[in-house]
């Protein structure tokens, strides 16, 4: 009996020994490649290229990103809950502050949903004005995108040129509705005011100027060898991946998917306007930047046609009540915002206040892809990828 025990323990010892031996072998093999740790870096909320209040916890091995954990919610202002306590018209200023770089388009997305819910007809002139201001705002937003992309790549100068052009657009908006930045211009059933005298001529003059200057700016930024080298082939995104992750807008079209709400589900007077959705095929950083730059050209094209086609008449549909009270029911409408597919889903219970407003913001969908495509890239590129995904945190957090 004792002998058996002894044998057993010897056996166990031997097992231990062999285990130790094998583990030694393993550690020896491991020591060939010196063990290094990953550095956990906080990126944001206060960071020069955090685009507001994004916080990403980046795990960096040397210079390569091995993991990203995004933290959002630093700007959560509970818009959807607030909407339930405001009348339909009162909620329009909130949409301004959602995606604050393209306020007009957010206004538009909201009022178009309410109009669908309440079945309100919009005068022709108002529709054209919406197209004009919407596209102007898209240009302004893309200009901010291009300038931040340039800053993140380390070039400061393009930012000043792009913002100069943006100032001109803001000046036009100020002429139209009195505000530089948060416009509150659209109303359920039209737009708030008609254009001042000569405003459309100013718009045309601006588009002609921008058409010329954009050529120079593209040469300055997109034609730059270093910029191209930094951007080309970084974080490529195939069409399937883009669709799986729910990307929308220029980022999706840069991956080769021809989906533009203005074409796929036309609204307003877009069917009467001849333009192309910008589709590029590599889906890398460079394409995402070029897509924006080319969309500016397309927007100029749209504005020119809209100004040519705009009829005279009223801009606000007659007989609209002070409080819009849609019948009970629900409606969903979406538009092509400067960041992608912006949808509003509104449920009405027949009272002057909505029962529920659900906002489908494109920035959120675009941002969630960041860990998937930025892992494995350089730290400096991860910042660029985050920039080219073009998230606005007013809209991500709402």
């Amino acid at each position, binding site marked *: 009996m004792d002998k058996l025990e002894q044998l057993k323990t010897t056996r166990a010892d031997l097992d231990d020994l062999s285990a130790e031996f094998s583990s030694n072998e393993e550690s020896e093999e491991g020591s060939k490649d010196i063990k290094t740790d990953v*550095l*956990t*870096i*906080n990126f944001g909320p206060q*960071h*020069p*290229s955090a685009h507001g209040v994004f916080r990403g916890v980046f795990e*960096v091995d040397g*210079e390569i990103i091995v993991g990203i954990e995004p933290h959002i919610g630093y700007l959560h202002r509970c818009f959807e809950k607030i909407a339930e306590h405001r009348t339909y018209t009162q909620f329009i200023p909130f949409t301004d502050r959602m995606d604050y770089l393209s306020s007009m388009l957010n206004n538009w997305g909201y009022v178009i949903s309410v109009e669908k819910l309440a079945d309100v007809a919009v005068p022709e002139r108002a529709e054209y004005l919406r197209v004009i201001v919407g596209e102007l705002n898209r240009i302004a937003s893309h200009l901010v995108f291009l300038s931040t992309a*340039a*800053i*993140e*790549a*380390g*070039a*400061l*100068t393009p930012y*000043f*040129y792009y913002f*100069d052009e943006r100032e001109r657009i803001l000046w036009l908006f100020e002429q139209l509705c009195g505000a530089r930045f948060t416009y509150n211009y659209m109303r359920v059933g039209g737009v708030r005011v008609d254009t001042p005298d000569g405003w459309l001529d100013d718009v045309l003059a601006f588009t002609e100027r921008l058409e010329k200057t954009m050529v120079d700016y593209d040469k300055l930024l997109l034609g*730059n060898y*270093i*910029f191209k*080298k*930094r951007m080309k082939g970084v974080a490529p995104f195939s069409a399937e991946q883009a669709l799986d992750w729910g990307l929308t807008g220029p980022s999706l079209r840069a991956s080769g998917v021809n989906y533009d709400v203005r074409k796929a589900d036309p609204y307003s007077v877009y069917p009467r306007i001849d333009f192309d959705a910008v589709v590029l095929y590599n889906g890398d950083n460079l394409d995402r930047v070029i897509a924006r730059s080319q969309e500016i050209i397309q927007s100029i094209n749209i504005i020119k046609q809209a100004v040519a086609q705009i009829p005279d008449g009223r801009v606000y549909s007659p007989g609209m009540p002070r409080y819009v009270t849609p019948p009970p029911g629900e409606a969903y409408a979406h538009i092509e915002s400067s960041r992608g597919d912006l949808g509003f889903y509104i449920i009405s219970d027949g009272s002057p206040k909505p029962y529920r407003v659900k906002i489908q913001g494109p920035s959120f969908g675009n941002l969630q892809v960041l860990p998937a495509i930025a892992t494995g890239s*350089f*730290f*400096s*590129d*991860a*910042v660029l990828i985050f920039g080219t995904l073009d998230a606005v945190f007013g809209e991500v957090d709402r």
Partner: protein
Amino acid sequence: MLTSVELVEFAAKNGIPIWALDASIALVLALAVFSLCGLGVIVLVYMERKVSADIQLRLGPTHVGPRGSLQLIADMIKLLSKEDVFPKHADRWLFRLAPALVFIAAFVGLMVIPIGPRLVVQDLSVGLLYVLAIPSIAVAGLIMAGFGSYNKYAMMGGLRAAAQMVSYEVPRALSVIGIVMLAGSAKLSTIVDAQGFWYIFLQPIGFMVFLVSTLAEINRVPFDMPEAESELVHGYSTEYSGMRYAFFLFGEYIALISAAALTVVLFLGGWHGPGPELLGPIWFAIKFFGVVFVIMWVRWTLPRFRIDQVMDLGWKVLLPLALLNILITGIVMSI
């Protein structure tokens, strides 16, 4: 030389040891160089702000002093009166020594640069080697700052500074070998005197390699990896405030001064120009500001490289080009 025979005789008569005489003259000269380079920093920072403003459709400083020229003075006095934050976790000595090292290394490098005929503090026979080697010590300061501040961004900035130095030290030094071969000396004043015909025309490849690696050496765009603001918040100097930061700023601009002056000396004929010899420093200044303007122009036009691209450029393009330059120079000179 400046230690003239009379002075030595005077010293010998009065029993002053020769080293004391040397030291006192050196002190006077050091103070002169310091005030000159202090003035240079003020002019260059003002110039940088004005040039960048001009490129960016802006005006630049206009309100402080005549045309905003007192802007840097206001900034400096303000930095002098700011609170000096010494982070709790920072390494005591590394954190303190880093700005001093960056500043002193850049300042001491100015010792051998001739700005006119015989206008040089110490005309070393290995002046070229000295002026390449000493300012590079500043990189150690950046690494110390990065490691000492116990901050991740600073840490990465310091490591990048090291990576960059590793890649650009060699091409920069190799690119001037051709000049040494042509001039037959590593003494800077001899190199200037040998330039009847500017070396920029005899050594175009060398000049390009030298200019690019100089940009990398002094951490200017497109090679400002150590302080890449878009990802590493302020790079190696993230934790520094007040005067300690100002020394980094001084160091950076003095490095710019010495790099631009070296470019003038090596490739643009130094103080040579039409007119009497007395105008030498003026010609030197004109060429100097020309080079500085080009560096600033590049700074405000180009984006930044990525770290691997930076190293690729250094090892795979500039180093072979520099070696090729030596080869071509040697063959042409032998024929």
